[in-house]
């Protein structure tokens, strides 16, 4: 019996990217549907009526919503590559850091590059604080997941990829190699992973898109 896996997303969104990384790590065949957020498809609106957002994973007709929820669903549904560790305490730790990245890191990174002018300086400072926290959490590990990419690494695509792209597009410096050597090494290892590389959108296109969207006049949301 064929299994149908469809991912609704937008190229360039780190939330969509995470799901692609996870599906590729698990070796799941899926169909990708790119959504134009200014003109959402009836399917998207049907599958996510509450938030009308991407990503949405549809597995055999049933929608799964919210990127962190989708990542756990993927890990529980398909065997093979473990996204979350087995030990309950390590799982709790992974979930904690995934949430930290989503709540504290990405919003600050975004604001520091694309926020209102008066908010940017404060956001840059905040980025410095949160990145240092992650630097300390990495300790001597190659990845947040240990020897291999895990949940936190996947979620941290916002740091592994988006951060560098935003820095370049907005001409803002956020990553200090002297202050954050471990994190910089992690970024190199992250970007060298073949499944991750396959899931990343083309960098130049994304930079052009971001500059166009957010720098022509006021940042509108």
């Amino acid at each position, binding site marked *: 019996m064929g299994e149908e896996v469809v991912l609704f997303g937008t190229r360039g969104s780190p939330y969509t990217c995470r799901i692609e990384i996870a599906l590729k790590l698990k070796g799941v065949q899926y169909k990708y549907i790119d959504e134009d957020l200014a003109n959402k498809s009836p399917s998207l609106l049907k599958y996510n009526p509450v938030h009308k957002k991407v990503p949405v994973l549809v597995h055999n007709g049933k929608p799964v919503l*919210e990127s962190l*929820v989708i990542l756990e669903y993927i890990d529980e549904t398909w065997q093979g590559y473990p996204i979350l560790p087995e030990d*309950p305490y390590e799982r709790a730790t992974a979930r904690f850091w995934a949430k930290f990245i989503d709540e504290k890191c990405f919003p600050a990174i975004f604001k520091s590059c694309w926020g209102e002018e008066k908010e940017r300086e404060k956001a840059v400072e905040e980025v410095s604080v949160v990145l240092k*926290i992650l630097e300390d959490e990495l300790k001597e590990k190659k990845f947040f997941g240990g020897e291999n990419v895990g949940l936190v690494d996947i979620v941290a695509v916002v740091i592994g990829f988006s951060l560098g792209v935003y820095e370049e597009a907005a001409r803002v410096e956020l990553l200090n190699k002297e202050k954050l050597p471990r994190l910089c090494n992690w970024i190199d290892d992250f970007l060298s992973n073949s499944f991750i590389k396959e899931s990343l959108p083309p960098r130049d296109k994304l930079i052009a898109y971001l500059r166009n969207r957010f720098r022509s006049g006021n940042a509108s949301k």
Partner: protein
Amino acid sequence: MAKNDVKLLGAWPSPYVLRARVALNIKSVKYEFLEETMAPKSELLLQSNPVYKKIPVLIHGDKPICESQVIVQYIDEAWTSGPSILPSDPCDRAIHRFWAVYLDETWFPTMKSLLVVQAEERKPLMDQLSEGIVLLEEAFGKCSKGKAFFGGDGIGFLDIVFGCFLGWLRVSEKITGLKLLDEAKTPKLVKWAESFCADAAVKGIMPETDKLLEFARVLAAKRREAPPKN
């Protein structure tokens, strides 16, 4: 396991702390409850949750676990004898987790705003909450499949995430004079709320609405005196 192997740092008014306590009760785990005054925060709290410095923190052995939804899932996975908190099917788990995110990121923040805004600013917030509660009523219908809880026969993850806020929900209703859970519009949730509060894992630890109301009034008075800080 010795009682002092499990400690919970918390405070009685916190619905997030209540989540951890309900989960521990479901698993019949003995624990030491360490009441935090939060002003000042204890050394133990600052050491065990240096990132957020917030409660609840579960300390199992010497390992701290933070963030209430992470704690509840940890409790479910660390203590495997006793009823399961998350459903077993991945689809059902995803549904519980989706609504848990919705509650914590969308619905509860709006409800909390209701407690601090001026009376004339309440209407749009109430409208948002009313729309949301209708969605939750529908979700209950689908998740419970005719049974008493989102989790079915017994309290599950979504019951805990939502149910532990019932005290504060009732405080909001008293302060605003407006009903969020309503026999006419949300009959299933009204019944569910009664079942949740009467459950053995919840009864006795759910704070009384009047005590919470008094606590809210004291907090509001303090806010009026001091400039708000985050």
